[in-house]
Structures are given as structure tokens and as C-alpha cells.
């Protein structure tokens, strides 16, 4: 083995060792790296008790109720849901059926008292016409399904 091959091998082994160390550290800190907890995780008591944490999921369709400055809505991950109450301005992209992340505490009544609400955008980018076409297609599909069940 030439010295340069030795050095190359040493670098290779070094990087591999570092990668393993990094993987172990990241798995150990898994809980702290999570930016938000899903409603299912909260239901399974995985969220921290009695201190600030974030929940994330979809704003359930038809759940947003505004009473003056107070907003109530339900966050869902399609399996479990959490009711949220928040006072303050919502970001522009806060919409029903879209992603949301809220920071706050879980009250004893099971209602999440949010101090900050952030909109979570998804990775889909499309022009308005395409978005319209997608919703129309979904509607017709639902209609068809409804008709099929009626026929049965």
C-alpha cells in the first residue's frame, strides 16, 4: 500500500466512523429533534406534560369558529383530533384542510391552548386552474361514490 492509499483509507474509515456516531447521536436525540407532535402522539401521551410543545396536523374542514379575537379549530392527523383555542392573528396560509403547527400547552380539559399558530405549507405547487381542476375531480369522484352506494 502506498502512503497515499493509506491516507485515503484513513479518511474513508474516519468518515464512516463519524457517520455512525452522528446516526447514534441523532437517534438518541430523536425526541428533541421533532418540531411538533401529531394528535396520535399526544393521545398516546408521547408529548411532554406540563410544558410548552407544538402540535401539528391538518385543520379539520368546517371546524374553524371565530368569536371576536378568539379562534377555535380542530387539528387532525386523520386518526386522532385535538381541539385548539387561540387568540391572535393567523398566518395568511391558515386554511381548513391545510397543514398547521401550533405551540402551546394542553389544558386539563383536553383543549390545546395555543400561543402561536404557524401554517405548514405542503410540497405541491400548481396554478389556480390546476388546483380548481383537482378539487372538481375530487368532487365528481365523491358524487360517483355516493351514487354507487345509493344504487346498492
Amino acid at each position, binding site marked *: 500500500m502506498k502512503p497515499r492509499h493509506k491516507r485515503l483509507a484513513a479518511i474513508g474509515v474516519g468518515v464512516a466512523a463519524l*457517520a455512525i456516531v452522528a446516526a447514534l447521536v441523532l437517534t438518541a436525540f430523536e425526541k428533541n429533534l421533532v*418540531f411538533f407532535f401529531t394528535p396520535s402522539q399526544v393521545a398516546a401521551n408521547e408529548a411532554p406534560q406540563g410544558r410548552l410543545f407544538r402540535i401539528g396536523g391538518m385543520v379539520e374542514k368546517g371546524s374553524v369558529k371565530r368569536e371576536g379575537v378568539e379562534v377555535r379549530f380542530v387539528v387532525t392527523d386523520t386518526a386522532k383530533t385535538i381541539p385548539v383555542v387561540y387568540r391572535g392573528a393567523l398566518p395568511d396560509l391558515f*386554511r381548513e384542510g391545510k397543514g398547521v403547527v401550533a405551540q402551546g400547552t394542553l389544558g386539563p380539559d383536553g383543549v390545546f391552548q395555543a400561543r402561536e399558530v404557524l401554517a405548514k405549507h405542503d410540497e*405541491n405547487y400548481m396554478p*389556480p386552474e*390546476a388546483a380548481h381542476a383537482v378539487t372538481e375531480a375530487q368532487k365528481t369522484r365523491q358524487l360517483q361514490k355516493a351514487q354507487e352506494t345509493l344504487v346498492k
Partner: protein
Amino acid sequence: MKWFWYASPQTFFPLAGTIARWCAVAAAALTAIGLYIGFFVAPTDAQQGEVYRIIFIHVPAAWMSMFIYLVMAFWAALGLALNTRLSAMMAAALAPTGALFTFIALWTGSLWGKPTWGTYWVWDARLTSELILLFLYFGFIALRAAIEDPRRADRAAALLAIVGVVNVPIIYYSVQWWNTLHQGASVSFSRAPTMAATMLAGMIIMALAFWLYSIAVSLVRVRCMIREGA
């Protein structure tokens, strides 16, 4: 070995000049085309409106920030293993451009974050790891500048660059591994892109322009280093 022919700074110098010139011209042309598509041809986004147009800068810059780091670490490792002076110079020449793109990615992301998420900054895995990348670039530049003896400076900086490589896959996969506020990738190696075709075209052209720009400026920087060293 033919490979080492261009490892000599003297033979590389004129070649670097020619490549840099052509890449600079192509980069300018592609930037003009990319920005034109980005601002005038690509449609408005259904959810975000006009704000989304930041992706024509943000996404290519973020790609470059990670890719340049990999290339930089590659040259640094090669320099460390083969003791070729030019490899270390290439690594050093890439660092400022990498830092620039990292900064642009963070900055444009922050400007986009306020209207869409409702905040300029959050400490989620993607944003934090990208910030660490910026500090790695700064560390590399500072460490190399801090050591008087150029050989020792190159070796120390190379080690830092190689250690930092671990961060790049963390940035890239952070949005898959953990819950983050930052959305997942719209364009990835494993599946079809989830964005309209013109938007995608604009982004790819901008990414190509950034590639060529990076090649041009880093080769010009290498030429300066060769001159200074000679």
C-alpha cells in the same frame, strides 16, 4: 499517469481561464432566461399567490449550498490523501461561493417564511442544519486563514470539511426523518415532481445557471490563488 497532468497549477491555469469565461457567459444567459420564466411565464401558485416565486432563487441556492459542500469536501479529501496543492486550492476556492448560497437560501427562506408560515425563523431540523452548514463554511474559511503555514492550513481545513460532510445528508433528509415546519421536497430523485411544468422548468434553469456561476467564480478564484502562490 495522465491524471496528474492537470494537477499541476501551471498547466491548469490557462485551462481554468477558458472554462471560467465560457461558464460565466452561459451562467448570465441562463439566469436571464430562468428569471424571465420565473417572473413572467410561470403561473401564480394556487395557495401562496406570488410569494412562491422565491423558489426560483431559494431552491437552486439551497441545492447548491449542499452540493458545493460535497464537492469542497471531495477536493479537500483528495488534497489530504494525494498531497496535491491544487486540490486544496479548489476546496478553498469553493468555500466562499458555498457560504454565499447557504446565506441566500437562509435569507430568501426567511423572507418567504414570514408571509406563508407566519414567522421569519423556527428552530426546526431543516433550518437549524442549514444554519450549521453556514457555520461550517465560515469555520473552514476562518481556520484556513488563521494558520500561517499554507500546507498545515490546508490540512486542518480539509479535516474540518470532511467532518462536516455528515451534516449534508442530515439537511437533505431532515424533512423526511423528523416532523419539521419546512415542507418536504417537491423535486427528488425517487418520485415525480409535485409542481407545475413551467415552474419546474424555471427552477431547473436557475439551478443550471447557479452551477455555471459557481464553476466560473471558483475557477477565477483558483487562478488568483495560483498567481499568489507562484
